[in-house]
């Protein structure tokens, strides 16, 4: 699918993100798809800084910064107020990192989705607390070094599957997306915009700084995450209807891991173990999508 990409930009050319920042790319594409009639709620995350200090703003839309754990709740309040005022046109977006979504903000998100609050929640996932200096989150993948999983204590726990957690709420729409697949990403944001009720977009957003990666590799690494099945592109509607949007050729995970400094300590045995986990997760997804024998 090739979307008519809007020429309109809702992010100014100047921002204070790191070179190669996946979160900045994600914002640009999402806003192109949603347009200017959008109010953004932003709990603490890298974007709290990228958006610029007072009295400047990186974005051309109204934005409300919010406490770390409150994305789902503050967005609920904004939506309620717009409803009271009779504004059904404006799209309310909560824009949070993985820490604000998987960890500290999970309760407010779960509450909002259970209440089927009418907004789009976007999690740009850079797989650790990057704004505070690369500390592990429950989104940090198995095998990763972070500043709180250093040396021999690299993370030996799997990444929380946030989409499946929300699917368990029977959320109206949940989808994964990736900065290396802009048509797919903008298509999903545009689709979500037309829906009502709770919607969730999980965007894989490279962090060259925290992943110990040259900035020019940002998009390439993101693409490899899809091609290796580490981060499959799929959608789930009403908690039951799965659609896999991209069928990879089945590249092995090794190169993805070998290119990133955060994984440099892993042995061939570790990578073999990780390959098994990735295969297991992919097969589980295929079964849910009705594309493999149960």
């Amino acid at each position, binding site marked *: 699918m090739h979307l008519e990409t809007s020429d309109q930009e809702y992010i100014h050319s100047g921002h204070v993100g790191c070179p190669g920042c996946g979160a900045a790319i994600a914002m640009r594409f999402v806003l192109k798809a949603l347009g200017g009639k959008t109010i953004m709620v932003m709990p603490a995350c890298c974007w709290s800084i990228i958006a610029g200090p007072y009295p400047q703003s990186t974005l051309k839309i*109204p934005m409300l910064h*919010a406490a770390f754990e*409150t994305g789902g709740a503050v967005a609920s*309040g904004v939506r*309620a*107020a717009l409803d009271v005022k009779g504004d059904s046109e404006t799209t309310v977006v909560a824009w949070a990192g993985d820490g604000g979504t998987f960890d500290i903000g999970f309760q407010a998100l779960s509450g909002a989705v259970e*209440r089927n609050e009418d907004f789009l929640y976007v999690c740009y996932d850079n797989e650790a607390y990057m704004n505070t200096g690369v500390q592990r989150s429950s989104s940090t993948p198995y095998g990763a070094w972070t500043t709180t999983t250093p040396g021999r204590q690299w993370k030996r726990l799997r990444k929380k599957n946030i989409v499946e957690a929300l699917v368990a709420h029977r959320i109206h729409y949940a989808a994964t997306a990736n900065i290396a697949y802009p048509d797919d990403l903008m298509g999903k944001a545009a689709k979500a915009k037309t829906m009502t009720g709770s919607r969730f977009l999980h965007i894989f957003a490279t962090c060259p700084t925290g992943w110990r990666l040259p900035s020019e590799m940002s998009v390439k690494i993101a693409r490899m995450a899809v091609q290796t099945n580490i981060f499959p592109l799929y959608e789930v509607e009403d908690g039951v209807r799965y659609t896999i949007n991209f069928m990879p050729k089945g590249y092995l995970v090794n190169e993805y891991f070998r290119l990133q400094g955060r994984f440099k300590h892993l042995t061939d045995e570790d990578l073999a173990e990780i390959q098994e986990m990735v295969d297991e997760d992919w097969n589980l997804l295929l079964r849910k999508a009705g594309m493999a024998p149960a």
Partner: protein
Amino acid sequence: MRKVIEGSHAVAEGARLARAQVISAYPITPQTHIVERLSEFCADGTLDARFLRVESEHSALAALIGAASTGVRTFTATSSQGLALMHELLHWASGARLPVVMANVNRALAPGWNIWADQTDSLAQRDTGWIQLYCEDSQEVLDTTLQAYRLAEWVYLPVMVILDAFFLSHTYEPVDIPDQESVDRFLPPFQPRFHLDPESPCTFGQMSPPGVYMEMRRSIQDAMEDALLAFADVEEEFSRVHGRRYGPVEAVHCDDARVILVTSGTVTSTSRQVIAELRARGEKVGLLKVKLFRPFPVESIRAALGRAQKVAVIDRNFSFGASGIFAQEIRAALCNLPGHPAVFGYVAGLGGRDVTTATIEEIYIRTRDAEAPQGESLWVGLQEVKHAP
């Protein structure tokens, strides 16, 4: 219309008459009757509001921060642990200059679990930038809820309306419930000075470096100082429409009193009875009720207490390592006044223990007969506790 209603329901009637547009709440005893009644108002169409039944007190206030930033009138109610859980967002609401109104039912903090009256929950939030109004009876609760909206939307600070657990929240009293038309005259629809609007995009609450932060903080203090003046005007307008006023403080027989009791909340009502009886016996005793705690009405307090010899502050709260919290504030208000009265601090009624007329008379007699305060706080009615060796 005069009706016999519960203190909790007086709060709910206030929020209904104020035409709150977004309500967000989470249950906690003894606040629940407030939000149950508001839920009924929303369900039967008496109140045209969106009611968010959120998953925590933290989210209750977070949702109102979102709603108030979008320019509508908001309400929530909580108590004790719930208020403590909101702490972070109490700072946020005032820092963002949002006119949120909240009722807090004063309840003790755990452990051990205790659902009864104790002011430490709200007084522990004194530095969060909220206007705090302590109420004595159900009529005052209803009137103060209406006044809270006028005040909040005047100075752009959040307001906490505070009532004692059970003694007030669950006690039935006759209350004059004003008609909607008169309330509408006193409290017109909210016209926000700023709000989230795609037609006029602005960013609220972003990173504020050292070069700008201090001025933002100062503006909150300026608003607090304005609130002291605005409160008088709000009361004036309220009394013109509804014929009642309370004042930031209320002085009873303070002009010629040698000893003045200082109270807040329902202990005030009991103290009124005690000083009436003491006065009848010729005792030179007075009473100062403190309603407005933030901003602290220092000048009114000095004017009322300045001529007394001794002041006895009764605190149903405590700051560990220091003293009763009203006593601290009264001392601070008086300390630069030449020849100020001696301030005696008494701690009584924590965790809902009764503060009876006998307790209050004992406090008066002790103060009258003592030469000087012995320490910062004297705990009244303590039982002897035998600890295991």
